[in-house]
């Protein structure tokens, strides 16, 4: 049975359609990466799936329960760590997890034991009795994650869990997400980081302007864009001759400068010796060589017409179409 099923889900705020007919399915034990820029509809979708917001159209089930008609059963099955860790800075880490255990209906003793074990797991045992307001951003996210796990949920929703974190803290969260998934937890992860989706997700859904524009495994999405290509920097010899040789091996891509040749290769790394031998036989010297795989950014560009991470860096700026 799928862990999450979403059919034609919609949410309208006045005149603004934040989510416009989203369909998706997440299998048990899967990590689903929900990728999109700010304002694309990621958080609105998560808020509907976690019963924090009523949909205005369509339907969704989580852990087999309807998010509107069986909201309480949904809430008992999920763990939620929302964007901007929703923590009380005046509570201690231990108080927060114990309160979460109470909210999830765990008996006092079990709640205390789970709190201690989780604080240990996310490496916060030493800081457990300090107020959350004194924690770093990474510590707060780890505490938020621990709180979401206190009742061992079937489905875990993580809304941009690493936004604003340094690379080390980000990697720690990734490792924890992988470990949880290995233990059988289904993870629905929203992110605006391509690398995060690529590293963690079994399946990726790309959302833009409230609609899913692409869905599949990261590999299949990248494969849709095309084969990997070999990027050659020539040291000596005619570039026209090099292009002619490479054109017999694969599809030539537009050159970036006068000394670079780029050719798509159907067999990836296995085709590199063939390319090098052919150029060597023609007396063309290769200064450097790189096998370049399509990225999720290429997928994002192909589907939306602009770069996700560029958008991320220029938050609030207008979307610039590629090539404009």
């Amino acid at each position, binding site marked *: 049975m799928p862990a999450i099923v979403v059919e034609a889900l919609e949410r309208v705020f006045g005149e603004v359609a934040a989510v416009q007919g989203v369909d998706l399915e997440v299998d048990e034990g899967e990590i689903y990466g929900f990728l999109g820029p700010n304002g694309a509809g990621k958080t*609105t979708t998560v808020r509907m799936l976690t019963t924090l917001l009523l949909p205005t159209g369509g339907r969704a089930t989580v852990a087999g329960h309807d998010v509107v008609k069986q909201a309480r059963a949904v809430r008992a099955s999920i763990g939620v760590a929302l964007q901007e860790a929703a923590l009380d800075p005046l509570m201690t880490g231990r108080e927060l997890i114990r309160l979460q255990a109470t909210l999830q209906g765990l008996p006092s003793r079990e709640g205390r034991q789970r709190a201690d074990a989780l604080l240990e797991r996310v490496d916060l045992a030493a800081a457990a009795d300090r107020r959350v307001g004194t924690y770093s951003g990474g510590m707060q996210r780890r505490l938020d994650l621990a709180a979401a796990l206190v009742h061992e949920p079937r489905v875990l929703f993580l809304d941009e869990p690493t936004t604003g974190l340094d690379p080390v803290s980000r990697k720690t969260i990734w490792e924890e997400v992988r470990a949880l998934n290995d233990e059988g937890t289904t993870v629905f992860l929203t992110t605006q980081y391509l690398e995060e989706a690529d590293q963690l997700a079994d399946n990726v859904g790309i959302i833009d302007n409230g609609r899913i524009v692409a869905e599949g495994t990261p590999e299949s999405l990248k494969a849709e864009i095309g084969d990997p290509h070999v990027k050659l920097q020539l040291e000596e010899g005619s570039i026209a001759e090099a292009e002619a040789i490479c054109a017999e091996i694969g599809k030539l891509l537009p050159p970036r400068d006068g000394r670079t040749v780029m050719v798509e290769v159907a067999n990836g790394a296995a085709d590199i010796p063939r390319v090098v031998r052919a150029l060597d036989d023609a007396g063309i010297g290769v200064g450097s060589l790189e096998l370049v795989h399509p990225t999720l950014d290429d997928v994002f560009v192909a589907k939306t017409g602009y770069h996700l991470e560029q958008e991320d860096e220029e938050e609030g700026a207008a979307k610039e179409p590629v090539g404009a």
Partner: protein
Amino acid sequence: MSELAANLRVVRGLGMRSIRQTFRRPQLMAPILVFPTLLLALQTGGAGSAVHLPGFPPVQSFLQFMLAGAMMQSLMLAGNSGGIALAVDIEMGFTDRLFAAPIPRYTIVLGRLAGTAALGLFGSLWFLAIGLVFGAEIHSGVPGALIAIGLVTATATAVGGIGAAIALRTGSASVVQGLFPLVLVLLFLSSAFFPNELMIQPARAIAEYNPLSFIVEGIRDPIISGIRASALLDAVLAIVGIVTLGLLLSARALRHRLRVG
């Protein structure tokens, strides 16, 4: 564990958090204890001769008369502070944690009100202690003190319900904080700080119908004279009215919050 017991545990847990939050954030504690204590000291010191005015009820001292007013001020501000704290929770997203938990939504409001009730109880004990230390008698003795404590605690809960409803509806701490002057106006237009009989119109007419006056008299009577069933009943009815209004508004505001997210 039965569902009721589980829900009571949630209310207790959220109530404990609410109390801790107030004691750990001085700006929430100051209006509940410091301001009413200062006002009590200033009024008792500066207007003590008012007890000799014709029409002033027979009292042992102005401090004895003022204790009920100080308790009312404290509990009204406790209710307002509870609303501010809930609005801060909404602003920082903490209520999302509560709304995403498998608990009845009303326990979230009741948890906050449990904390406000505890603060009301604490405020009533504080001012009764101040009264006793500075020589004010509790005319009806221990039963009178218990009635005053009970009414203060219940009123704090009732007023907290209104504060919670406004917080849930607006989701803005500054809006709830902006009600602070209104709370004082409502108090000054009641018999909290001065007997109705000595007020001039139209303040007197307003004070006579102000539900807060009924509650003040219910608290004051056992302190300055004796326990009167009619005053007690009026106070209880006024509290029930405020509780009903608070619960209705909170229920509507909760539904609104879920609609708008």
